């Protein structure tokens, strides 16, 4: 049984003023429940692709559809609302807000969407507990280790129960132990049915958590392999 597509890229190109296209005629379909790893050399267009899916950037050509929404056609405000509802994002450098406590950071996406503080706090409590960092709820991100910070970032990305989780080099700034930690976390989420797209240099990460590995080179898909990892 084929589940519905969550991501559909069709003939997507992204050109900057100078140089070759960062993304060149890429078509890709990701279905619900998949965990896709996108790998490739530096500068090959991985982040560009992820940004296009998140509606943070717009393609020069082609269409991007996420969970039934034509992301490339959204206005700025529309894409913000889209991200709120459909996308959780995790970055290499965590991108937590230093002046907010861990709990406040995690609650932010819900509060942006207008969820009441009480409800947001309950949901954040659950997530922090599920990710095993509830004891840091009132701490500031600056005090946490890299791995812990990335867990907070993941918790934040899951706040609004997005159908799609995007992660760009989630282990890129972490030592190997913390990296393992994050890998395990992503695996658990996938096991719970979360659709995940992870950009990474780290082939072990790809092997460990992905059901499918897409290799990009020079802005094109060079390989698309189902790995059917742990399950």
């Amino acid at each position: 049984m084929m589940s519905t597509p969550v991501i559909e890229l069709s003939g997507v190109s992204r050109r900057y003023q100078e140089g070759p296209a960062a993304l060149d005629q890429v078509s890709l379909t990701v279905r619900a429940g998949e965990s896709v790893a996108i790998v490739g050399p530096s500068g090959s267009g991985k982040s560009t692709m992820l940004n296009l899916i998140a509606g943070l950037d717009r393609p020069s050509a082609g269409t991007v559809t996420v969970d039934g929404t034509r992301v490339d056609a959204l206005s700025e405000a529309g894409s913000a609302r889209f991200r709120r509802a459909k996308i959780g994002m995790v970055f290499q450098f965590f991108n937590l807000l230093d002046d907010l406590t861990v709990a406040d950071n995690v609650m932010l996406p819900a509060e942006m969407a207008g969820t009441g503080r009480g409800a947001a706090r309950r949901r954040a409590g659950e997530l922090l507990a599920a990710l095993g960092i509830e004891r840091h709820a009132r701490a500031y991100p600056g005090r946490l280790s890299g791995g812990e910070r990335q867990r907070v970032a993941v918790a934040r990305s899951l706040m609004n129960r997005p159908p799609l989780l995007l992660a760009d080099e989630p282990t890129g700034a972490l030592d190997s132990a913390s990296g393992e930690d994050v890998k395990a976390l992503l695996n658990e989420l996938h096991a719970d049915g979360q659709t995940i797209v992870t950009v990474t240099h780290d082939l072990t990460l790809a092997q460990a958590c992905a059901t499918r590995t897409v290799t990009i080179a020079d802005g094109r898909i060079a390989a698309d392999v189902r790995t059917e990892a742990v399950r």
Partner: protein
Amino acid sequence: MSGLGRVVRSGVRRRRVQTLVTGLATMLAVTVSVLGGSLLVASDGPFDRAFAGQHGAHLTARFDASRTTAEQLTSSAHAAAVTAAAGPFGTATLDPHTGADLGLPANASLPPMTVVGRTDPGGPVDDVTLLRGGWASGPGQIVLADSYGSPVQDLGTVLDYPELPGDPKLTVVGFARSVSRTADAWVSPAELASLGAPGTAGGYQMLYRFASAGSTAQVAADRAAVASATPPGALVGAQSWLVTAQGTNRNTALFVPFLVAFGLLGVLMSVLIVGIVVSGAVGTGTRRIGILKSLGFTPAQVVRSYMGQALVPAAVGTAVGALAGNALAIPVLSATADVYGTTTSGVAPWVDVVVIGGALGLVTATAWVAALRAGRLRTVDALAVGRTPRAGSGRRAARLAARLPLPRPVSLGLAQPFARPARMAGMVAAIVFGTAAATFAVGMGSSLNWVQAAKNHDTADVVVNAFGPPTGSAVAGPGAPSNVTPHRTRATADPAAITAAVNAQAGTEKYFGTAGTEVTVPGVAGTTSVFAFSGDSSWAGFTMVSGRWFTAPGEAVVPSTFLTASGTRLGDTVTLQDHGKAIGVRLVGEVFDPHTQTDEVLTEAATLAPAEPDLHPETYSIKLKPGTDAAGYATALNGTLAPLGVTAGSGRSHGESGTIVALDALTALLTLILVATAGLGVLNTVVLETRERVREIGVAKALGMTPRQTVTMVLASVTVVGLIGGAVGLPLGLALHAVTVPAMGHSAGLDFPAVAIDVYPDSELALLGLGGVLIAVLGALLPAGWAARTRTVTALRTE
């Protein structure tokens, strides 16, 4: 190019917005300082400087042409003590009437004017400044002195001289200002000769400057020297510059504190803004400093690099600001000159030098301190900025704000300024200044308009001038505009006939008559004018400083000057010596009358009846029933009055005084500049802030913050600042106003009643208090828009 130079250049270029704002803020600050400085300079002895500038006449002497010759007068220039002389110029005193047209009622009597025949406004003495139009060179042309108290305002107005042979008419071709007030009007010498009234030999005017004329005694000695150098009896009158100076200074005294306050506000504001902008420009980008240092830049090199980055735009801004300041100073100083009745010689060069030097010095010093701090920063700390937790105040504010029942973007914004207390203080200070300036300006505007209203006291709808023809629509005396004076030599028409006509006219609600006479008051030098009112004069529109309007014969009200001159207080009884009879009046009220040059007493006509039973009103001030058309009423009444030879006209005054117009314009301009400068200070800070928070904003946008939420967040961040700034600035502005208004009155010898100071209605107070928020929001709007538009990807990339 050296590595250092390249860093400065790229720093200036990369942070284009901030560089632009630094340049703009410096520019505005320098503009404001040039204006403020010039105002301070212009307000320092305005008469003396203008007098010196025009080589004013220490003595304006008038000679009888039948007793001396032009040659004799020319040689009087060689009299001892005379250092310069101009003349002889022919002169005559004439009675002009308005010709047709140009908004003035036709054939109205204007004040008598001293006309002088001069080919040239310039000369070694009394170098007259032409304000508008040209000099009278041909026949039928006249130039009016702006000190000539008439309602004539427009070039092209025709003045009529019906009492002169041939009923000559002169067209106003120019307006000029003589600081020494040597004439009311000028014509060409040929024109003056043709204007000579029959039976009068006419006169000559000579203008003298002396080696020493600093005191009344010196001027008297100088006058004696001139008198002895000319045929005996030829010198028929002479006006000392000291008297003119006193009169002018009394007028300007009213406005000096006001303009000084504005000048000071401007200069202080400039210092503040330059401080904020430059320290902000340097204080930001600590991370870049860290990178530079990790690459091997020494602290000294970092300091120099950052000073360079601030100084380049500041220097450009200073240059442009100096130009703009000098350009703007032309209208501002000419308005100031109008207020002071002086002339402007532009911005004093030393003001430019001081402001430019001061601005650059201030920029350098501020940049140096800020850069020094940056240069001393440990490299690791500098590199870690943005990654390490900052001071606690920001967090506490963030925690508290998060609890508020507000949308999250609002509460995020509210907490922001607290993360950077110094920067916030700078912003608050800018808004405090802006709000205080606006509050002060609005209050001054109201107070000055109050003064204007008190001056006009033109509550009458229609005024009947009881003198025979010709007559104007409005006749002076209390209850009417004072810029058209009556001819007291003419007899008044039968009062009973006039009142009968007024009573019979439909639409009359009430009226009172005003008569003028002169009395002496023991203990008061010279004569005192008495205005005697008949009928119910309680609505005459005089503003009381204290006490009440008179209600019975034997009671009187007086202006503050009279109380001072006579050494009396309300409740005292003073004696009026009138036609040999002594009449006691009890002082029951103090009126506000800024016009009063002489002392005056206002009372009921019945008070003077024992001494002057035949004192008839010179004017009747009529109040119409609501809904009555004043013009139609006057026309109808004129029909009845025609046989009596008197006319009725509008009681409303002719517009505002030029001084008030000039002050209002000045106030508006200065306030605008001060508020704009404050807004720019906010803009600069918010630009810095959003630049620093660009990553944070990017994160929030990646988490789903919409552009509108972004704008909301940025605007919320300045709202607190605006509220605090408004809360401090408002009372400051009120205090400044409350100090300045009495100071203005005090230096002009006037007591302002409380109503002149409590001029702020509650709604206006609320608006002004929120003005801080307005300044803040206006300043933040642009950067908020940028923040909302910043591409999230770019923001996230930025380190």
